[in-house]
Structures are given as C-alpha cells and as structure tokens.
C-alpha cells in the first residue's frame, strides 16, 4: 500500500540534505509536489499511486537541479562570516582569557574547567556587577543562533544580528574594566570578536531575505 506521507517525507529528507533549501522552501515545494501528484492521479485514474508520485517528483526536479538557482537568489555570502564567528566563539573557550586565569597547559582536568568557563564564572561573580552578568549572558545569544538559522525569516535574522552586535559592544566593556594591554589575552579577543563576525553574517542573511512579515506570515485560509 502506497503511503503518500512517507513518500513525501523521504523526498523531503533528500532535499533537506542540501543546505540551499530552507524549511520554507521545502514547504512550498512539498505543496507543489502534492498538487502535482493529485492532478496526475486525477488525469490518469488507472495510474498506480506510487507511479503518480514518481512522475510528480520527476517533473519537479532533483535537489541538485534546483539548488543552484536557489543559492543564486539567496546568496551564500552570509554563511562564511557566521561559520567563522561560531568557530571563533568555540575556540575562544579553550584559549587563555586573562593573565591571571588558567590556560590549557596548566588546566587541571579534574576540575573540568576550561579557560573560557573559568572566565565565565568570574564574570558572573564580578563584584555583583550588572555588566559582568550581562556580558556572561550574551553567550546564550550566540548559542541561540545555532538553532536552525538557515530557516530564519528576515525578522529573526535581523533581530539575531542586532543582538549579537549589541552583545559585542557590551562585551567591549571588559576593555574598560581590565587592563587590555596587560591582562586580556587571545581568548577574550576571539570571544568578543566572534559576536561581531557572526552578527555581520546574519545581517547579510537578513538583507537577502524578503521583506519583513511576508515570509513567516500564516494567514487563515
């Protein structure tokens, strides 16, 4: 017995492997596939459902045939800075942050503290300073961008970019608080810059998306 939903899910999984297609793109293509399947069955009542589905799928095209055109429209220039920002952020947790802090070389693995984690704990407890806590919490903003950012509509991409760039500005507060020439080390600079780099990539992403509101709106039919 032909299971249309299972067949569509399989087709969708094939497209989802190609990063050129967002969830919204796949929703639209799936609607087309289902419509073409229904018309195929309507026009050829004797056709087996599986054959009708194969026909509709073939007419729609394969991922490799369509991905180039999708990529051309949306552009991929935003992916590099976002990825670089994420990598800088991840690496920064392993780099020495402060001259008085630990490094990987003298890390006691029994304590389970990376240099970045130690710095985070210091920030949280930094004389009960608002800026210290706020700066520590900006890590959550960066982590939030890991969640399906390719599927983000323009509002989310714009907001994420604005938050990351504001976070970078906030994190520069440590330059005022500490002695940058003597105290702050590579881990801090990589960490602070990662927000700006990823944020600029998300700004590029937002600019490549359709007008606000038009992409994510679901109106009652």
């Amino acid at each position, binding site marked *: 017995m032909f299971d249309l939903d299972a067949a569509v899910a399989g087709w969708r999984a094939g497209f989802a492997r190609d990063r050129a297609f967002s969830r919204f793109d796949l929703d639209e*293509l799936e609607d087309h596939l289902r419509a073409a399947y229904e018309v195929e069955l309507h026009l050829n009542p004797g056709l087996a459902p599986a054959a009708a589905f194969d026909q509709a799928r073939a007419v729609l095209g394969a991922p490799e045939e369509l991905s180039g055109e999708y990529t051309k429209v949306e552009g991929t220039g935003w992916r590099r800075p976002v990825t670089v920002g994420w990598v800088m952020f991840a690496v920064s947790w392993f780099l020495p942050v402060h001259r008085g802090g630990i490094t990987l070389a003298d890390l006691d693995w029994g304590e389970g503290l990376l240099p970045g984690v130690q710095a985070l704990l210091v920030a949280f407890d930094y004389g009960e300073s608002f800026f210290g806590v706020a700066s520590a919490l900006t890590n959550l903003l960066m982590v939030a961008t890991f969640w399906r950012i390719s599927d983000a509509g323009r509002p989310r991409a714009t907001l994420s970019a604005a938050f990351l760039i504001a976070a970078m500005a906030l994190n520069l507060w440590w330059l005022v608080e500490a002695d940058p020439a003597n105290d702050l080390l590579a881990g801090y600079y990589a960490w602070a810059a990662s927000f700006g780099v990823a944020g600029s990539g998300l700004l590029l992403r937002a600019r*490549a998306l359709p007008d606000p509101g038009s*992409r994510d709106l679901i109106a*009652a039919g």
Partner: protein
Amino acid sequence: MEPTTPIPLSKELVAASSRPMVLSILAGGESYGYEILQRVRLLSAGRIEWSDGMLYPVLKRLEKEGLVVGTWRTMESGRRRRYYRLSAKGHKQLEADRAGWAAVHGALSLTWGGSGV
C-alpha cells in the same frame, strides 16, 4: 490546429521572459506556484514548458526585489500554501516590461514580415 508540443526555448529566452510572464499572470489576481505554471502552459497552448521546480527561485527573486508579496495560508486540508500577489512596485515593473517587450515584438515583426520569415 495549433501545435501543442513544447518547443525548446533557450535558457536566455526563458530567463528574460520569466519576470514579465509571472508578473502578467499575477496582475490577474493572486496565485500560487502550481497554478502559475498551469497558467503559463494554458496561455502558451503548451508551447512554453517551464521546469516545475525552477519557478520557485524566480518567485523568490521577484519577492526579494519587492515586485511580488508572498503570504502563507493554511488550506482546509491543513496544508500550507504560499500565495503571491503583485506589489505596487510590481505593477510599475510590469508596465515597463510590457512596453519593452512590445517594442521588441514590433521591431521583430516588421523585420520578419519584410523578409518573409
């Protein structure tokens, strides 16, 4: 009787005609991808055959340029469908495209008419 077998169009001609074709169809009212493709086939009596999946990047580009506006709707079946309508900017672009294509068509008609093609 008019031929109904699709004739191969060059990539360049398909690309150049896609915008005025889609804008012209949407000038008649909002529509969605599958319906737009059927309209193209119907209007051209099957002589223009677009690859189904290729329409959607065109719609995305038009939306990005602000010429059309897309809206998701949930159908009675629960399925989501994206509808497109012409924006004010799209109407202006359609007028410009129409004038341009009419000029090209007029010039070619005169040329081919004169040479007996």
